[in-house]
């Protein structure tokens, strides 16, 4: 029983991590008024690029950096169209998702061929933290994880601090609420929005790399499987705050972890229904969110001076 709880917690944290990383990035871009619906696609690109980088360099770190650089490039494209050209964010985001789906399938087949054998690559290993990992029940779950997991959860208070206590955080929140007011006090609205989108691209790349190299050790087509959209949902469910997004990611992650458990437990329920579980939880959670939210007033509205 105790072992069950420990492994469930460990599995929840692992499944929540990619959603959390992407959601933290999205908290920043959403607060600045940009809804990056292309996160799903960016994560997919990140997942593939991480594996490719790791395969050629033999280092998971190089893999992660490759993933981040490539997704940041694509966020720059997204930023250019939505911020400078003022195109509709949903349309550009959807375009990125469709593009990413095609691009990753093609590149995957070019690099890895169509063979079924999986090449061995360097992945994120678990690092047990001395002493803490020996705490009964929770130690193994919380303190025997890979580096990105620790970083993701440490980024939650850091993200809160940056948003609430620093100059850049204040400007970012203001830009998402009332860009014109920011313009009148000499803030460069477009610059802040570009920075926010680039940061969310960075985080999406990292999240994607964790899906392919933290949870698994290879890339499969369409492997992000809606986690980017769940990250978008986690931001809304978490009321646009880092801590809220973390709690939401843990709830969604629990759905996924539970689904694995139930499949293994031979409940007699067809597995197709169990696989729906995390998505179902996400939909229900979002429908329950009707209270007053921190949703920025200028969300998804392009800014121009005239």
């Amino acid at each position, binding site marked *: 029983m105790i072992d069950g709880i420990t492994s469930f917690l460990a599995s929840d944290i692992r499944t929540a991590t990619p959603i959390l990383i992407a959601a933290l990035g999205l908290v920043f871009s959403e607060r600045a008024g940009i809804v990056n619906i292309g996160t799903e696609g960016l994560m997919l690109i990140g997942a593939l690029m991480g594996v490719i980088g790791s395969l050629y360099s033999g280092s998971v770190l190089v893999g992660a950096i490759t993933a981040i650089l490539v997704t940041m490039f694509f966020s720059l494209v997204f930023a250019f169209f939505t911020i400078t050209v003022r195109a509709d964010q949903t349309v550009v985001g959807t375009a990125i998702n469709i593009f990413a789906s095609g691009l990753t399938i093609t590149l995957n087949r070019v690099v890895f061929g169509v063979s079924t054998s999986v090449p061995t690559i360097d992945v994120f290993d678990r690092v047990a933290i001395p002493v803490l990992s020996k705490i009964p029940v929770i130690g193994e779950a919380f303190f025997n994880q890979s580096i990105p997991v620790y970083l993701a959860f440490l980024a939650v208070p850091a993200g809160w601090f940056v948003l609430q206590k620093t*100059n850049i955080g204040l400007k970012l929140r203001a830009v998402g*609420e*009332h860009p*014109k007011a*920011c313009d*009148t*006090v*000499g803030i460069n609205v477009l610059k802040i929005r570009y920075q926010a989108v680039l940061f969310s691209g960075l985080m999406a790349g990292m999240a994607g790399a964790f899906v392919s190299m933290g949870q698994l050790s290879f890339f499969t087509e369409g492997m992000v499987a809606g986690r980017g959209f769940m990250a978008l949902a986690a931001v809304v469910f978490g009321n646009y705050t880092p801590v809220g997004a973390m709690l939401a990611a843990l709830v969604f992650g629990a759905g996924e972890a539970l689904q694995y458990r139930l499949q293994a437990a031979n409940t007699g329920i067809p597995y197709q229904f169990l696989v729906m579980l995390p998505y179902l939880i996400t939909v229900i959670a979002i429908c329950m969110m009707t209270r007053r939210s921190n949703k920025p007033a200028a969300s998804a509205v392009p800014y121009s001076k005239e």
Partner: protein
Amino acid sequence: MAFLEMKHINKRFKSVVANDDVSLSVEKGEVHALLGENGAGKSTLMNILYGMYEQSEGEIYLEGKRVHIKDTKQAIELGIGMVHQHFMLVPALTVIENVILGLKENKLVLDLNTAAERFKEMAEKYNMEIDPWARVENLSVGQQQRLEILKALFRNAELLILDEPTAVLTPQEVVGLFQMVRKLTSEGKTVIFISHKLAEIMEICDRCTILRQGKVVDTLAMKDVKNKEELASLMVGKNVELITAKKEAEAGEEILRVEKLCALNEEKHPVLTDVTFSLHAGEILGICGVDGNGQSELVKCITGLHKINGGMYFIKSIDCTHDSPKDILKHKVAHIPEDRHRMGMIKNMSVEENLILMCYDHEPFSQKGLLRWKCIDDHCEILCKTYNVKTPSIKEMAGNLSGGNQQKFVVGRELDREPDLLIAVHPSRGLDIGATKYIQSRIVEERDKGTAVLLVSTELDELLELSDRILVMYGGRVMGIVDQKEATREYLGKLMAGIVE
């Protein structure tokens, strides 16, 4: 030497000339009015000074030194502050966050406590109490305006531009604002006051520059100005009658009766509580109050656009409490809505399409589901002529017309239906004197024909001039109904502020 000099400023937007060789000279420590009708170029000129736009030609000198103001950041550094007509505050942030937003002295990690101390000291100096930790969305409009001024002073502004500052204030708040302006000038600060309200300019300003169609007409010292009419004729370019002639009302049968009407807003807070009044044929009932005290909700309830949570209302003794807007229109109700761009017209449709929005679906304009354009064209040509709508053609996009002409065709469309009840909300908002007078006289004409008129306005002068009775609203309640002959600005002002004797 003048404190500020703007010399030969030209500003063109594509083919439109907004400022044409405008020169302005402002002395240190004075209140300088910028007077002109809408579209005269006042705001454009000030936006150039504040770095929001760049002039096409011309030079700006501050204390004798030539300055190039490329953006607002630079304007702020030069000690120029601007309070915009629509406040530039972020409602979701706190007062102090708004005050320090974008300051270049801000460190990476913000020190809000020190800033709050300095802000409080400053607020006390000007006899203003604002909690630095309150969220701006919870402040009243008057408080927000004071915050805007303090925000500029916090940035060490020496020259303060106030763009139509009194438009949103009660008469009492205007008094407070003027005290503050006098205090600022007594400290050697300079104020540029943009307005088209003549009485206020006469009261607070030392000198006045009048703009008309992008050009400077004249700069006058206020002590040389004899009366409002003199300023008005300079502003409009011809002699204007400031008073709309009006004979005694002859009230007829009861057209509208509202009984204990209650309504809630989206957050389930009451916005109307027990509103009761009645309106007769041939009279104008003015609804007076500071913006946001339930006037627009009242109108929306009566026109079927807002849910009614209690009470009822009758049009010609027929209960219409839960009728749809379309059913209500059938009782010959006409509505000139408060925001013509959002409710009165569709910008991306032609003038004629806009003119038949309410009658497209019946004869003679439509037959068997098809529109009869010949008939519509003829009808619209006549309407435009009757109501003086200046448009290149009735096929022109409605959004391309000037504000005055847009309002004229909205008014024309509504009056053409020969209403028994006319609801006019801010009918002259944003219009110049000429268009305002035209629309006001049309409303009075309608009354004389026996129409019951409900007139909502925030302009006291307009209400005092046109109404037969004035109903004052505060916090969603009726504070009182005053006969026009007994109404004074002071008394109405008290009721508007929620003070009952």
